[in-house]
């Protein structure tokens, strides 16, 4: 155990049939840092995310969050524990408005029960107002005011990416997993993302793990970088150290 680590991954491995998608990876993330996972396609980066958010079952190894073992926790508990995530290909609720999407992010904080909701008792209304206030904070942070009542299906790709980050923030996480936040974005939008990551880290005090290909963004915001290839850990250190690592260069250049 590394003292004070928010997330501690030990010897994590997952096999699909004969494929070792993640093969014995260990790392830890300290509170308040931006930890980036890089690597060529198929290196197992997103699989690590899916293991942390419990979409996949780990074959061996363990994941501890705030010292609590979550390797076998049910997937829906993860959000309540304080881990939120975004997806590589955007998994928003397309037939709902931005506001509704963000409100779904409040689900881990649901305190009302079914019967009171059916009758819409006064305390349900109060809870709804409180949820809405939290959501408005996120809207202000990410400048989404003008999109509140638009359907996701009508929004451009870049805005959807931001809404997805917003939805994750609405769960009030202590650990945020961002899966390729800049993929498909223009240069300006990528710069915005880099500012927001700083804001989220500094203002909200949220720890961030991110998978990213854009080396500029990685060098800008990351405190530490982990490089993976073929399910194995290649290098771990500051962005400069990892970029200078011979094994990493070999993996990217295929030499």
């Amino acid at each position: 155990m590394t003292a004070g680590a928010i997330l501690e991954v030990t010897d994590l491995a997952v096999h699909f049939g004969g494929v070792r998608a993640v093969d014995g990876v260990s790392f830890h993330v300290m509170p308040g840092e931006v930890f980036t996972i890089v690597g060529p396609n198929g290196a197992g980066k997103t699989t690590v995310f899916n293991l942390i958010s419990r979409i996949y079952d780990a074959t061996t190894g363990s994941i501890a969050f705030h010292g609590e073992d979550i390797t076998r926790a049910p997937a829906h508990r993860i959000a309540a524990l304080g881990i939120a995530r975004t997806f590589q290909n955007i998994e928003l609720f397309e037939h709902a408005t931005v506001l509704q999407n963000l409100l779904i992010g409040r689900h881990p904080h649901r305190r009302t029960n079914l019967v009171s909701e059916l009758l819409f008792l006064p305390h349900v209304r109060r809870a709804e107002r409180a949820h809405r206030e939290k959501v408005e904070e996120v809207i202000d942070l990410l400048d989404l005011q003008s999109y509140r009542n638009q359907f996701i299906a009508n929004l451009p790709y870049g805005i959807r990416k931001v809404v997805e980050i917003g939805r994750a923030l609405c769960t009030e996480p202590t650990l945020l997993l961002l899966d390729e936040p800049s993929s498909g974005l223009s240069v300006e939008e990528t710069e915005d993302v880099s500012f927001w990551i700083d804001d989220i880290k500094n203002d909200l005090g949220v720890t961030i793990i991110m998978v990213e290909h854009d080396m500029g963004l990685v060098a800008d915001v990351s405190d530490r970088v982990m490089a993976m290839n073929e399910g194995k850990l290649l290098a771990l250190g500051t962005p400069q150290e990892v970029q200078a690592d011979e094994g990493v260069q070999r993996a990217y250049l295929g030499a």
Partner: protein
Amino acid sequence: MELLQLLISGIAQGCVYGLLALGFVLIYKATEQVNFAQGDIMMMGTFFAFAFITGTSKPVSWWSAPIAILAICVGAALFYLLHKRRLPAWRDTAASQPRLQQVTAGGAYWLNLLAIVALYAVAAIFAIRFLSGFGMSWWLALPLAAICGGVLGYTLDAVIVRRIIGQPQFAVVILTLALGFMMRAVAGAIWGADDKGFTTPYSGDVIRFGGGEGTNPVVIGVPSLVIIGGTAVMIIGLYLFFRFTKIGVAMQAASQNQLAAYYMGIPVKYVFSMIWAISAAVATVAGILLVPKLEVFSPEVGLLSITAFAAAVVGGFGSLPGAILGGLIIGIAEALSTRYLPDILIDIVGLDGSFANKIPQVIAYIIMLAVLIIRPQGLFAQIQRKKV
């Protein structure tokens, strides 16, 4: 020896379920659509065979003329839609541009129109003959009906089902259910809702063996044996088709990864429609083989497909051998439970007689629910989970 008879009969029935289930699975594997109209396609195919076989005993009723005209209009609409939508979508647009222009260019346009008119004339004659019957031999009617069934399947996909690709799965479920209703209504309107039948070269034939003094001989209906044999032949044929023909391999490719297949130049839409055609033809043959066993059929025979579903689910809805095996399991279970289960339920469990007699009718669904609960993926399944 009664057991042997029951087994043969159950296996034959199971083969029919299996063939229908095969159709479901073929379409599902390729397009992830579930064709709830499969049974009704089988029913239509069987009625085609009925129309080919029966003679001109039924006079041409006066309203066959408006129906023929309707058929022509529908045909025209279909042809228009097919022509309009097909060309650019097949291969990459750059290559198809010149062809598209050719079709719309002056001379070819009139030629096309002429071809269309000729086609409808044939269709009209066909439609009128259809209502009165052809009086063909069974041997000729079987392949002809199978081809007609195939054309029906192809058209359904090309004209209707293809249009809602990309919509959620339930849209396809509801659409195919509705198509099934339409076909049942059409068959009922043309041929009437009462029971029909046609004779085959082997109808009513039986094989007897065994049985001396005191014991009954084993009596096995030839229709059951023909079903079993026919199923075996069709399975081998399909295997060879998928394994060795170009289009068969293209179908496998398109089933595994549409987009990649499309980029490799496989005309995915056409391939999918062909898969519909094949499963419709297989269902038609299954239906025709079933008739001498059941002796009668009606527009309601399509409801058989719900039982065939159970078979497909038991088999795992993604595995072709699984579909046949699931069909056999269901068929045998039905045959045995109809004979033995009510007695057991009445004598041992003490159920009410009228209730106990109902159970064998739903045994297929009970088996299916049990399989779904124990192994939600079916007995022979592939992994299903969305990738993020």
